[in-house]
């Protein structure tokens, strides 16, 4: 069967079946390859193992950085955290990112609705036998929405100005029940009562960490830990792993764009980088049909090394 094709007028790649052949044991080659890859994997695993940095628990966060937990709780109630102002798929608070005029984030819709204030209120409402918490919640519920926001915002601002964000050093002010609520939230977290509260409360099995992760991501501790491990977005973090373990070197081009302008300072960086990488991926897929790019192997003759025996035989 002839499988020649016309590259361009006048040039056809010959049928590979028309060439001189030699004996070759494909199955033996495969078995050897399988043995080699298995052996290499076992040896590397035995020598280097794999990293397993434990998850940041809510209580771990609360004990390591209590000021961050208090500030995050205040921010959720004030509606100023990242999740509270995110937009789709969590809420309608923002238009989200766009690229080439396409409002893709918004068009995706709010398919994973999350009320950021509820990340604090729901666990607090589950607390029993603590009059301080009950009173603070009652005071919060008695306030009109605008007063709630004003009190929470005032407290969040005051925390930001306090030395080390320490709630104990916040000057007196009009914070309503916020100091009591956030202190109760911190107590709950430190005591382990927040684990699972946002994921399996009322359902037992859980399995979806969305709300817990959004709360954790709204704080600074998660990112501080990641940046200390060189995993931050502007540290080529997408390529990296904790410690000295190999990461994902194949992500080099994806993360590269985040390191340079205009993406490094763009509010739409995620959507822009995604679109750019999809375009480049499409170009790689369609390479055989892209004039110029598909001719690079002819212009830079690396192939003369690969097929040197064949060319030598042709000349003799």
């Amino acid at each position: 069967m002839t499988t020649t094709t016309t590259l361009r007028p006048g040039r056809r790649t010959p049928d590979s079946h028309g060439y001189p052949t030699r004996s070759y044991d494909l199955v033996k080659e495969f078995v050897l390859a399988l043995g080699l890859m298995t052996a290499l994997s076992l040896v590397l695993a035995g020598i280097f193992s794999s990293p397993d940095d434990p998850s940041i628990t809510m209580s771990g966060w609360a004990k390591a950085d209590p000021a961050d937990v208090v500030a995050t709780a205040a921010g959720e109630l004030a509606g100023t955290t990242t999740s509270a102002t995110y937009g789709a798929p969590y809420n309608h608070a923002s238009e989200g990112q766009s690229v080439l005029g396409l409002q893709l984030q918004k068009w995706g819709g709010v398919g994973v609705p999350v009320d950021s204030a509820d990340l604090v209120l729901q666990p607090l409402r589950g607390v029993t036998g603590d009059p301080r918490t009950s009173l603070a919640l009652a005071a919060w519920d008695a306030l009109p929405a605008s007063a709630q926001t004003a009190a929470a915002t005032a407290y969040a601002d005051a925390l930001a100005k306090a030395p080390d964000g320490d709630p104990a050093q916040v000057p007196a002010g009009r914070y309503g029940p916020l100091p009591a609520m956030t202190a109760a939230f911190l107590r709950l977290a430190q005591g382990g009562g927040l684990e699972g509260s946002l994921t399996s409360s009322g359902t037992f099995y859980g399995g979806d960490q969305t709300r817990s992760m959004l709360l954790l991501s709204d704080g600074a501790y998660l990112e501080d830990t990641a940046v200390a491990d060189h995993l931050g977005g502007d540290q080529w973090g997408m390529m990296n792993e904790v410690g000295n373990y190999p990461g994902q070197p194949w992500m080099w081009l994806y993360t590269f764009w985040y390191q340079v302008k205009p993406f490094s300072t763009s509010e739409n960086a995620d959507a822009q980088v995604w679109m750019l990488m999809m375009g480049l991926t499409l170009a790689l897929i369609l390479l055989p049909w892209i004039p110029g790019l598909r001719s690079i192997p002819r212009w830079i003759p690396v192939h003369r090394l690969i097929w040197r025996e064949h060319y030598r035989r042709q000349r003799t």
Partner: protein
Amino acid sequence: MDSVFDAGKYVSWGVVSISLTNLLVILAMVVIFVLALVIPFPHDHESPSDGGDA
């Protein structure tokens, strides 16, 4: 609690910052690629030229 000592060794050059491990992985790949091109492939089962395989 993670500390700064959990970060591995990194090599920086201008905007580029790469972990030493990742750099070694990439360099090893390039070296292996070049070796694969230049090291002769054994061909001691070559049969006399025949007109081709079915």
